[in-house]
């Protein structure tokens, strides 16, 4: 069972792509518990990918703090500290076509982390580790000397997963890991991610726009809108009792593979609006948080 201890703690995280610009992520706070999957949902441009990239320091943090296992990673300045952190926190990207170096063999792509962090004594051990990783993600180890273009989209995403697992991380940001894949392949990759999570006790930040899939994989979720988290809580609870008008609108728009439901559905519209600067997260029920204005109304 889950240990109720935070592995990642995010406090007032903000990112601006340019000085003076509207922040892409504004004053976002949440924590991810050891061994859980925290899902981030929201429309494109809401800041979920920016948030994910800051958590593994692929993007600079404009203000705010990110603690990983108690260590303030926003304060990391030296290369050595960064190396140590990167070994523990990895990322899987959305596009399995763009995220693998086309001139490298699969074995060298997967072994990158092993090489950088000197996790193997010698060449033989390194190659054995890669073979092991390939096997566990469902790739044939004898394909190790092939190039990425020789693999299908689903297989490439498996390569991306093996690469992330190579450093034996504790935390992986999964940034839309299945949206570029076909329906029949999506389920394979999600099953693989879940299996590895159980086997290795991994903690995930799962970013996606497929709301049914996010609900399926996540223990808790955060709903982002215009750079803010507007609602956060246990996935079952948020989907069953959404409180924020944006969440309600979003969930009412999920297409369901059921004609009778689709014919008779009504969607809840959401009027786009600015979120007040002074809005804060308020707990509305145990573990369920809502972004509210100073009068206690959903912001």
């Amino acid at each position, binding site marked *: 069972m889950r240990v109720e201890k935070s592995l990642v703690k995010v406090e007032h995280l903000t990112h601006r792509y340019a000085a003076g610009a509207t922040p892409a992520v504004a004053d976002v706070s949440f924590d991810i518990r050891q061994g859980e999957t925290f899902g981030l949902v929201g*429309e*494109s441009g809401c800041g979920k990918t920016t948030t994910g990239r800051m958590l593994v320091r692929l993007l600079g943090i404009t203000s705010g703090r990110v603690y990983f296992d108690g260590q303030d990673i926003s304060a990391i300045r030296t290369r050595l500290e960064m190396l140590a952190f990167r070994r523990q926190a990895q990322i899987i990207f959305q596009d399995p076509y763009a995220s693998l170096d086309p001139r490298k063999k699969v074995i060298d792509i997967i072994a990158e982390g092993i090489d950088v962090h000197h996790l193997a004594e010698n060449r033989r051990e390194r190659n054995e580790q890669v073979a092991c990783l390939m096997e566990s993600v469902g790739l044939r180890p004898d394909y190790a000397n092939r190039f990425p273009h020789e693999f*299908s989209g*689903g*297989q490439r995403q498996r390569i991306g997963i093996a690469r992330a697992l190579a450093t034996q991380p504790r935390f992986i940001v999964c940034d839309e890991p299945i949206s570029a894949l*076909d*329906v*029949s*392949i*999506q*389920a*394979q990759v*999600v*099953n693989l991610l*879940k299996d590895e999570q159980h086997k290795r006790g991994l903690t995930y930040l799962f970013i996606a*726009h497929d*709301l*049914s*899939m996010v*609900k*399926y994989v996540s223990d808790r979720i955060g709903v982002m809108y215009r750079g803010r988290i507007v609602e956060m809580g246990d996935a*079952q609870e948020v*989907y069953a009792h959404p409180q924020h008008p944006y969440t309600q*609108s*979003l969930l009412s*728009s*999920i*297409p*369901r*593979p*059921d*004609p*009778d*439901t*689709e014919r*008779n559905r009504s*969607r809840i519209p*959401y009027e786009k609006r600015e979120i007040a600067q002074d809005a804060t997260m308020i707990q509305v029920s145990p573990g369920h948080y809502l972004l509210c204005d100073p009068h206690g109304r959903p912001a």
Partner: protein
Amino acid sequence: MMDMLAVKHLSVAFDTVAGRVQAVRNVSFSLCRGETLALVGESGCGKSATCRAIMRLLARNAQITEGSVELDGQDLLKLSSSAMRKIRGNRIAMIFQDPMTALDPTMKIGRQIAETITLHRRVSHAAANRRALELLAQVGIEDAPRRFHQYPHEFSGGQRQRIVIAIALAADPDILIADEPTTALDVTMQAQILDLIRASQARTGASVIFITHDLGVVANVADRVAIMYAGKIVETGTSQEIFYDPRHPYTWGLLASMPTLNTSGERLRAIPGTPPTLIHLPQGDAFAPRNPYALEADFLAEPPMFKISDTHYAATWLLDPRAPRIDVPDFIQKRWEEDPCASKSRS
């Protein structure tokens, strides 16, 4: 009801460096006035190639090796290019997946819509502009008179898709082909675009061919559904038949592999393996190697379309009278029992 469009035994092949790709293999379907048909399948299953063949917009290395596409009894594949140009955009219009590449970035959007109108109708520029303004308002672009003079980059993704739809509607087509029109959009925007297509269809009485891989979208828009795999239609039926009484193991696999809002805990039922390359097709049924219900016959011969009802057909040997009886798997039937939001009125 009279069929407006009839696609018969259509086969399309692409010549590539690696060899000849059988992208569409003996596909037949028809479309009645005012109805919506969803073509469903994974990438490379031939759904887009089928529609491009109907529009005669296939790439240079493609060849229609067999079949006919009849619009009101007239075979489009036999028309001259200039006659086809009068059909395209006028009687059959297409909505493309990526609105950014479908629009001309250097032309104001008002002109792009008006151009489609003047191309197909003998009207003055002023009248075409008035109609273009009307269309912009109809597809939900606010402040249309001002935005008429703006360029595509000044619009958001959802708005651009609305403009693409306005262009498709400009000549009042009889048939709209929508190729994954909402795949690039968020769910809220997707819902609005689906509503818009449906409203336009109700107003003009157009028929729609909707290409998608999203079964949620299919349930929302389709009257009838054709499921495609490896270049063939493997099951076709009314929306009700496909969702509540699916018969092909591939349809079962598709339905079962996506979580519903009630799926939790258990592993997803993934379809094992990957789709075949269409260059070296396996002997027998192309789905057999991934099919847990495959019979010996599946590896030897391609199954014909078996009739289940006047509207429901599926190509699987399981429907042969000699096949062992396989009931629709539990996980397909249970999907509906578990969903508290799903309506209970099923036959």
